[in-house]
C-alpha cells in the first residue's frame, strides 16, 4: 500500500530524513516513533504529497507520489498534528468541501457524516463555524474528513493528541475497522503504550535515520516498547 524507498529530504544543509525505507502492507497499522524533530512529520508530509523531496521514491498503491500526485492523493487521507482547518467555514461546509473534492456522492456523504459525527459526538456542532471549535473538536472533524472518502491509506501525525478518552478509544476502533477492510494506516505517536497495543508494525526514527523497524514482536521482543525505544535512543546518541 505504501512503499518508501531511500527517502531523503533536506532543509538547507540539514538532512531531516536520511535514506529512509519502509513498506506498509494493506491491513497493517504501522506506528512511527521518534523524539521531537526526528523526521516523523517530514516523512508523513512527504508521503502525503505536501513536501517535495530530493532523493528516493514514495509509492502509494504502486503509484509514484511525485509522478502522479493526484491519483495518489485520491486514495489517501492525511491528518496533521495540529488540525488547522478552514476556520471561516462551518463544520458541515468543510466536510462537504472535502466530499466535493474527493467526489463522494451526496447521499453517501450524508450517511458517512451522520455515522462518524454521531459516533464522535459532534453532530450537533456541525453548523457552527470551525473557529468556535475546541482543539479536540477540530481533531474529530479532521478525522471525519479523512474517513469520508474511505481512503485506502490514512496518514496521521499524532492523532491522539487533544482527543478525549472516549474519542481516543473510538479512533482505535475506527483504525482497526479500516484495516480489517483492507486499508492501511501509518501514524506517528509519542504515546508508546498506545503504539504497543495498537500497531502491527513499528518503525523507530532518530535524526532522520531509521534505527529499527518490523513487527512489534521483532522490535521489542520480550521487553516493553518504551524500554526498547529508550535503549535505541541511547545506543545511537
Amino acid at each position, binding site marked *: 500500500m505504501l512503499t518508501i524507498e531511500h527517502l531523503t529530504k533536506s532543509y538547507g544543509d540539514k538532512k531531516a530524513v536520511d535514506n529512509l525505507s519502509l513498506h506498509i502492507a494493506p491491513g497493517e497499522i504501522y506506528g512511527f516513533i521518534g523524539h521531537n524533530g526526528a523526521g516523523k512529520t517530514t516523512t508523513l508530509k512527504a508521503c502525503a*504529497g505536501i513536501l517535495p523531496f530530493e532523493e528516493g521514491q514514495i509509492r502509494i498503491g504502486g503509484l509514484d507520489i511525485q509522478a502522479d500526485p493526484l491519483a495518489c*492523493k485520491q486514495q489517501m487521507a492525511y491528518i496533521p498534528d495540529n488540525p488547522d482547518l*478552514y476556520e*471561516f467555514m462551518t463544520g458541515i461546509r468543510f466536510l462537504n*468541501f472535502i466530499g*466535493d473534492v474527493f467526489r463522494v456522492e*451526496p447521499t453517501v456523504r*450524508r450517511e458517512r457524516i451522520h455515522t462518524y459525527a454521531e459516533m464522535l459526538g459532534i453532530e450537533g456542532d456541525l453548523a457552527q463555524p470551525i473557529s468556535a471549535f475546541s482543539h479536540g473538536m477540530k481533531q474529530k472533524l479532521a478525522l471525519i474528513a479523512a474517513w469520508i472518502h474511505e481512503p485506502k491509506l490514512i496518514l496521521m501525525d499524532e492523532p491522539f493528541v487533544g482527543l478525549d478518552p472516549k474519542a481516543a478509544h473510538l479512533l482505535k476502533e475506527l483504525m482497526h475497522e479500516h484495516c480489517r477492510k483492507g486499508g492501511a494506516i501509518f501514524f506517528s505517536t509519542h504515546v508508546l503504550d498506545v503504539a504497543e497495543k495498537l500497531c502491527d508494525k513499528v518503525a523507530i526514527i532518530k535524526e532522520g535515520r531509521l534505527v529499527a523497524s518490523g513487527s512489534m514482536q521483532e522490535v521489542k521482543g520480550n521487553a516493553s516498547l518504551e524500554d526498547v525505544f529508550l535503549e535505541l535512543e541511547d545506543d545511537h546518541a
Partner: protein
Amino acid sequence: MLKVLLKNRLEALLSVLTGASRTKKAQSKGKLIGFAALMILSLVSIGTLFSRIFEVIGPAFHWAGLGWLYFALAAVITFGLMLVGNVFVAKSQLYEAKDNDLLLSMPIKPIHILLSRLFLLLVLAEVLALPVVIPAMLYWPGSVGVPGWVALILSFFVILPLLNLVVSSLLGWLIHLASARARNKSLITLVISLAFLGGYMYFSFRMNSMLTSLVENHEGLEKSLGAVAPLVWIGKAVTQGELLPLLLLLAASLALGVLALLLLSRTFIRTATARGTGAKKRYVERTARAHSPRAALLIQELRRLWGLPAYLLNGGLGVFFVVLAAVALLVKGKALTGMPEWPYIAPLLQSIFVVAACFMAVTIILTAPSISLEGKSLWLPKSLPVSSWDILQAKLRLHLLLAVPALLLCSTVMALVLGYKGLTLVLLFALPPAYALFSALLGLFENLRHPNFNWVNETQAVKSGASVMITMFVGMGMSALPVLVYALLGDYISMEAVGFGMLGLLLVLCALLYLWLRKKGTRIFDAL
C-alpha cells in the same frame, strides 16, 4: 516586563513595516530599503491627497486671518484619519490577537499586555498624523514661532493620538462585543466599516462646501466652535503660541487616557478570552448538492472572502465602489453631459471615464493576499487530490468572477449615460476587464514571491503584505500610464490609439504572467 512587551510590540511593528515577518530568513539590505520605500510611498500618497486641500485653503485662510481655523481643520482631518485607520486595528490587536492566550498564561500583569498593545496603537496614530501635518505645514504661508512648533508637536503627536487611543479602544471594544454576539460577524463588521468609511467620505466630499461656508461665516465661528473648544485651543496654540489652554487639554487627555485604561483593564481578560456568546445554530441534516472539485475550490475561496471581514473590506471594497459608481452615474449622470463648459475636458470626457473605470479595476485586490491567507491551513489544499494550478486558478477565478461583471455593469451604464460610440465604446468594454485580469495575475505572482504565513490575525496578511502594496501601486501606475502617455504625446496620437496600445501591452503582460504562474508559479506553490 512592560519593557520586554514594548520591545516585542515594536519588533512586531518593524517586522511588518520591513516585510521581515514574511520569511524566516534575515531580510537583505535591499529588501529592507524596498519595503521602507513602499511604506513611505503609501504615506506620501495619502499626504498628496490632503496637500490638495491645504494648498487651496492655506493662502485663503492666512489672508482672512483664520490661521487658528486652518490648524483646527488639520486637527479634525488628522483625528478622522487616525480613527478610520485605528478602530479595527484596536479591535484586532486588543481583543482578538491570537497571542492573547499565550501572554495571559505567563506571569505578566494583564494591564502590561494592554499597555503594550495601546503603545502600538499610539505609534500607529502618530504615523497617521504625518501625511496631514507635513502638507499642512508645507502649505501654511504664515510663520510659526518656537511656541507654535511646540504646540504643533504637542497637539498632533501627543494629544490627538492620546484622544484617538481612547476613542479607538472604546469603539474597538464595542465593535468586538457586537460582532462576538452576532451570528454573522462578517456582516456586522462590514456594515460598521462601511458606515465609518461612508462618514469619512461624506466629510471629504463635502469638504469644499463646508470650507466655503466656514470662511463666509467666520465671524461667528469662534463663538459657535466654543462647544468644541479644544479645536480652537489647538488652532490658537499653533498660530498664536497660546500654550496654557493646550496644557490643560493635555492634562485632560492624559486623565481620559488613564480612565479608559482603568476601564479596559477591568474588562480586558473577560473580553479577550470570550469565545462568542451568539446563539448556537443547530445542525439540520440534509443532502448537500455535489460540486466538481474546481467548483468546490471556488466556493471555498468565496466563503473565505465572505468569512474574513478584513479580506472583504480591503480586497473586495473596490467591487462595491464600482457598483456604487454605476448607480451614481445612472442617477446623476445626466449632469455630466452639461460639461462642455469645460472646453479642454469635454472632448476627453469619455476617455477620462474609461481611465476612471480602469483605476477602479485595479483597486480590487483579491489575489494579492490570497496565498498568505492560507496561513497554517496551507497543508489542506496541498494534501487534496487537486493540482496546484487548480488551487491558484480558484483564486484567479474569484477575483475575475467579482470584478469583471461589476466592471461590465459600470461600462454598460457609462455607455448608456455618456453615449459612447465606435472605438471608445470598444475600449470602454475591453480595457477595465483587462486591467482587472492584470491585477489578478499580478497579485498572485507577487503573493507567490512574497508569501506571509506568520500573521497573528488576518488583517496583517491582508493589509501589510508586500504583495498587496506592490500590486496596488503597480496597478495604479498602470492605470495612470495612458494619461501620462497622452499628456506627453497628445499632439501626435489620439487617446483611442493610446487606449489600444495600453490594451495590447496589458494583454502581453497578462500572457507572460499567466505562463509564469502556470510553470514556475505552481512549482513555487508546491515548495511552500
